[in-house]
């Protein structure tokens, strides 16, 4: 009976050990002879274990989507639409007041005649349709107040964040970052996105690309028609003055960086000259915007050389809108606006359907990047970077080296001590410890957990804590032996008594590691993972395996006089 039990245990341990070995150093392809050499094992190990950015090198970015901008823009746009709806129906409106303080989005419409309020409300509802249904409206006195309830606010913010995440994914994909990780970060309400890019050392360009709002609009410039030249103003104040001091909701004053033609000598314009800004007044809303884009590409400018421009085409819907508008506005001036800056102004010679271009002084790379961000669509809201961490490959390799060195020294200290202090039983503990290490690596691979530098620290710590179970058991066995028990019953009692303590100590450590895993970020999670994994495996290696080794030792001789412990 006992023999059979022992055999069963041995088989289980052998299977687990072999499986562990296979998972850790087994190649994922048909094994060749090379896979059994030292360098072969090293390469398989490196490809099997998923290293964190801090060891592999790469960039870790945390960004926040400024979702309040979305709500603000929505409030302003709807306010304009409501006013327009009322005016179209000839209903008297004294004032439309949008309010966009943090967390509070409101549109107050004041009417000169309170009896018309219901009609204004109805007109707005007709004009905006479903867009207005997320607002709560109430009438009191001579005002209607539309408020955006918190639930609608969070829904819109959530949508914006999800959209931003998709756009970031497609931009990363387009720029060719290998194996990027894009996911939500922190709590749902924090609207943060985490981007990890292995192998990217200098993230400047990618950061600019991801951040680029790339808001493209084609607008009507307020100006006398061609052949008169376009109406520009040299300062913003001057432009506002032309509108009577305040900018009405259907107008915008935008900077216009006038394009400098190369001078006669072919000298490119200096940066200073290019910065010279003028201002123009444009109509709002835009005729079409970036969401109607079908394609955008960087092409060489007509002058050739190093100057590039963007050629774009519109989707059928946008093309139709654009076509009918340009057809009706021949000789009027049209502006191409990028990120609230007028890039070029031209008069409309004939009806344009779906083609256009953004000229400007672009280099090949800036034109390529701009075309790429235009294609991926405009971000629904600006993003800001909150955390940036980069690790170069040399620093990562260095961390691996010192981590491995520290683990090896820790292991050597522990092994030497155990062998010296517990002699025969020490061998037992060392076998359990080695098995623990192998199974821990196997566990990391099976759960495709990421090994980080704190993760390596977790492994080192596990070495110390794993051996604690053995110490507890061995000390207990020694105690039992001192009370005069026979060897088999001392071993039996030692394991049984120590087991209660081992469970308690393991559970408490696992509790604190779990909190670290749930609340921790990035590398710290790696630490919690290795620690928990090490402790769980320890229950198998230090209790089950050690016990089996003792059983095997006891079964070899019929009468055991001494136990090396």
């Amino acid at each position, binding site marked *: 009976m006992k023999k059979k039990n022992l055999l069963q245990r041995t088989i289980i341990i052998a299977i687990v050990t072999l499986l562990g070995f296979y998972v850790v150093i087994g190649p994922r392809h048909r094994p060749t002879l090379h896979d059994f050499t030292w360098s072969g094992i090293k390469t398989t190990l490196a490809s099997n274990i998923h290293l964190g950015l801090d060891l592999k090198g790469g960039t870790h970015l945390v960004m926040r989507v400024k979702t309040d901008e979305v709500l603000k823009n929505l409030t302003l746009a709807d306010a304009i639409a409501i006013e327009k709806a009322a005016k179209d129906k000839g209903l008297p409106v004294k004032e439309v007041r949008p309010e966009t303080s943090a967390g509070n989005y409101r549109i107050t419409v004041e009417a000169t005649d309170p009896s018309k309020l219901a009609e204004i409300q109805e007109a707005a509802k007709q004009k905006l349709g479903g867009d207005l249904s997320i607002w709560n409206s109430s009438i009191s006195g001579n005002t209607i107040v539309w408020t955006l309830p918190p639930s609608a606010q969070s829904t819109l913010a959530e949508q914006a964040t999800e959209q931003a995440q998709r756009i970031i994914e497609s931009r990363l994909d387009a720029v060719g970052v290998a194996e990027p990780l894009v996911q939500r970060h922190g709590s749902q309400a924090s609207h943060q996105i985490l981007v990890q890019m292995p192998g990217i050392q200098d993230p400047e360009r990618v950061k600019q690309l991801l951040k680029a709002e790339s808001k493209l609009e084609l607008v009507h410039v307020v100006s006398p028609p061609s052949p008169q030249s376009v109406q520009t103003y040299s300062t913003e104040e001057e432009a506002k003055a032309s509108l009577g001091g305040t900018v009405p909701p259907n107008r915008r004053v935008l900077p216009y960086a006038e394009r400098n033609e190369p001078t006669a000598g072919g000298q490119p314009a200096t940066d200073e000259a290019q910065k010279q800004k003028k201002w123009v007044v444009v109509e709002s809303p835009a005729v079409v915007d970036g969401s109607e884009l079908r394609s955008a590409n960087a092409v060489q400018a007509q002058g050739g050389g190093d100057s590039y421009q963007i050629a774009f085409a519109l989707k059928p819907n946008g093309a139709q809108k654009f076509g009918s508008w340009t057809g009706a506005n021949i000789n009027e001036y049209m502006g191409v606006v990028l990120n609230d800056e007028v890039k070029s102004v031209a008069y409309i010679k004939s009806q344009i359907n779906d083609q256009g271009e953004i000229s400007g002084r672009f280099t090949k790379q800036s034109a390529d990047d701009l075309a790429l961000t235009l294609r991926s669509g405009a971000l629904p809201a600006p993003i800001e*970077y909150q955390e940036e961490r980069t690790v170069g490959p040399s620093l990562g390799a260095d961390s691996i080296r010192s981590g491995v060195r520290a683990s090896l*020294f820790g292991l050597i200290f522990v092994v030497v001590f155990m062998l010296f202090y517990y002699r025969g039983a020490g061998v037992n503990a060392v076998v359990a410890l080695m098995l623990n290490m192998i199974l821990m690596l196997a566990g990391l691979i099976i759960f495709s957990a990421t090994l980080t530098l704190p993760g390596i620290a977790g492994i080192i710590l596990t*070495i110390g804590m794993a051996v604690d179970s053995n110490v507890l058991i061995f000390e207990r066995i020694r105690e039992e032996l001192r009370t005069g028990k026979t060897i088999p019953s001392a071993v039996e009692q030692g394991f049984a008594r120590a087991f209660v303590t081992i469970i308690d100590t393991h559970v408490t450590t696992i509790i604190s590691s779990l909190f670290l895993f749930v609340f921790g970020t990035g590398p710290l999670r790696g630490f919690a993972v290795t620690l928990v994994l090490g402790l769980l495996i320890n229950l198998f290696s230090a209790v089950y395996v050690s016990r089996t080794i003792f059983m095997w030792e006891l079964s070899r001789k019929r009468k055991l006089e001494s136990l090396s412990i």
Partner: protein
Amino acid sequence: MIQVFKDVNIDWLANRRIFIAISILLMLFGLGSAVFRQWKHPNGSEAFNMGVDFKGGTVVTVKFKQRPSAEAIRDALFATGAKDAIIQPVTDKPDTVLIKLPLEGAGEGSQTQVDMGRGRVKNGLDKFGAEHDAYEIIGTDAVGAVAGAQLRNKAIATTLAALVGILMYIAFRFEWTYGAAAVIAVFHDVLVTLGFFSIFQWEVSLTVIAALLTLVGFSVNDTIVVFDRIRENRRLHRRESLYKITNDSINQTLSRTIITSGLVFLSVLSMVLFGGEVLRGFSLALLIGVTFGTYSSIAIASPIMVWWEQRLELANRSAAVATNRDNQRPSSSAKRTSATTETRKQSSGAGRA
């Protein structure tokens, strides 16, 4: 058979006042350092030398071909507008320095910080030659003010939540008094370790928080081993006083305590010595934590538990006397309660043994 401690018989609890006095003194030192630094800012220091993780700011790790002096680097950076740069050489790598830029401004300033830090350092260093030629930026950590505050709050919440979780578990497995004593001892360890970080102005980073949580787990481990023994001995020797049982239990588990702590200490020491700069804060926190975690399970947790249990017993007894007087009933409720707890412990223990 080598045996470090054989038949030790030390009256630990007799020295409880000295132990607790030492601990309070240590905690007062740490607290004093934190308060003094926070108020007076000697050498511009604060209660804790918070790393970029919590304070925000930028740290750029730069490896030079020929390392210029710290002054030269600072001057080069100053010229490009990085005013308060701190240049910190890496101890075990003479060609590498850490360049730390504090957070500029608040609110929107955090934005510029995260975007600009690296570029600014790069511009400044280009004075020494082109990147990849004269120097190489091998790592950056830039954290904005918002993210820093978030990480800090999360760290504090995590540590406290872990403590509550442990308290619940021990209360479930032992008694409330045991759980409370263990948690007080662990809290003490965390405070003493933090005190060291304040006194020596070691940098507190995210990994240090991980170390503190590990320490929480480790120290409770140690306490539980002793408590487990107390629980067992109370079952075996009903007539012994709790005082004697506790002393005996500490002595019986002493060799295990010393061996385990010694081994963990050694593996942490190898991290301090060979783990490199990145793990330094982590391993230092653990080194101190392991030392005090071991000490506190003997010197803090056990005395508090004994004191508490004795007080409860006294309260029970006086309550029993009162009820006896009032109701003139022969059976004492104190005896009854203690009897039921005994049976409860016994039955749950028997199931496990």
